[in-house]
């Protein structure tokens, strides 16, 4: 069975992360104008007026965030395969990771749907309905937490508990993931307060957690890129059938027709011609 390492697929999946951060940042801050976030203590009429005031920019922001949300899947996948690498027979951490990742993506998408629904008929229907849908988006945004925490924690456990010979992610990145989850966790308690620093527009559940999440995604992207490079270096030394690195051959550059169709080259098997 072909078990070659597909570097391009890996790196593209990994770069979905930074694209997500940009899309979400632009959508959240610039387009939806969640800076500052509307206070949950606002009366429904004021919130409706705020939404109506920049309705199309807001909906575009929701669209940006929606697309960004989908990109979480490939980014998470690029890390999960390394967890799986050390757990081939009983992949508990891997399964936890991808199940939680899948849930996180689904909930992440729902958030944008609820926020967009709040604006869809804002001003035409009762402001209380608008406010309820808007709140629903925020509650989902912050209570998506447990899915995200389990995804991140299973990734961290894989890094910290890995056998050292498979240490493709540095141990400190596992610790950083654990503390990141800790900083996101105050997002769970906002439901008890309708206003103040612990409400959904406040620094404790939202801003500090979001800032940490952004930093975490960037750090894990850099760390993930280096992990892919390490795996690539390892695969270049593989000489067995079906192993090594997959590098697509461009048929237009192949040797003249008298030869049989060129077979893909296993880079571990050939000594020269390396990029």
């Amino acid at each position, binding site marked *: 069975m072909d078990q070659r390492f597909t570097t391009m697929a890996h790196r593209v999946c990994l770069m979905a992360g930074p694209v997500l951060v940009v899309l979400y940042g632009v959508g959240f801050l610039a387009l939806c104008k969640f800076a500052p976030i509307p206070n949950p203590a606002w009366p429904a009429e004021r919130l409706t007026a705020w939404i109506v005031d920049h309705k199309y920019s807001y909906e575009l922001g929701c669209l940006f965030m929606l697309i960004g949300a989908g990109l979480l899947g490939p980014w998470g996948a690029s890390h999960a395969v390394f967890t799986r690498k050390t757990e081939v027979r009983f992949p508990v951490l891997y399964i936890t990771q991808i199940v939680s990742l899948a849930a996180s993506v689904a909930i992440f998408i729902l958030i944008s749907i609820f926020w967009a629904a709040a604006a869809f008929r804002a001003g035409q229907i009762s402001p209380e309905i608008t406010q309820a849908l808007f709140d629903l988006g925020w509650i989902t945004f912050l209570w998506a937490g447990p899915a995200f925490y389990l995804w991140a924690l299973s990734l961290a456990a894989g890094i910290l508990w890995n056998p050292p010979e498979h240490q493709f992610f540095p141990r400190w990145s*596992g610790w950083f993931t654990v*503390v*990141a989850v800790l*900083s996101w966790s105050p997002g769970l308690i906002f439901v008890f307060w309708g206003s103040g*620093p612990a409400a959904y527009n*406040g*620094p404790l559940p939202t801003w*500090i957690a979001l800032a*940490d999440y952004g930093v975490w995604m960037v750090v894990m992207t850099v760390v993930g890129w280096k992990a892919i490079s390490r795996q690539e270096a390892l695969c270049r030394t593989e000489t067995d059938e079906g192993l090594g690195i997959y590098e697509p051959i461009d048929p237009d550059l192949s040797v003249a027709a008298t030869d049989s169709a060129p077979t893909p080259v296993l880079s571990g098997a050939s000594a020269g011609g390396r990029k």
Partner: protein
Amino acid sequence: MPDTESLTATTTREEAPRTASRVRPEKPPSRGWIPGEWGIWVFILTDFSVFGGYFGTFLVLRGRQPGVFRAGSQALSPTHGAVNTVFMLTASLCVALAIRSVREGRVLTAQKLLVGAGLCGAAFIVNKPIEWAGELAAGHGPHQSDFFQLYYLLTGIHLLHVIVAMLVVALLWRKVRKVQVAPTALQARYLENGASFWHLVDLIWMVLFALFYLVR
């Protein structure tokens, strides 16, 4: 399995000279020494920064509502806070001494010190809800003002850290039992990581105590 030397020489076990692979020198070696591992310091510095954000939030809100915050801190008991601070500091003292003891192979001393740390931590954990109950009985609930919102939230987050730290101390106690003569490199890393986490919880409290109980 302990070798026959340490079985027959019970007195020397407690006073065994340090022969561990990671002897801590008086002067730092040229490469420098990291207690535990880099990762735990990434954890510590990040967590402290996140709490820094919480502390900043407190002071910004305090600036906007000075009367509310002053009334809030006057409603708290600095004695309670000071007693809790001493519990935290004494627990840290025990943990620091325990690490030193285990490096010297004095496992039983280290275990006793860790139990001491656990007792101080337990005292803190018991004292906190008593204090909260007192505040609630006086009518100062988490919805009374932004001060009390932050008070219950931040001391609550810190309390969760203390509870985790208690679990860490229990794990350290278990790890210490396996040490023979002196810790191996991996054992030392584990023990120093755990101890450093405890001290983080302690130093966060130093600032919480100042902000909530003392700042006027």
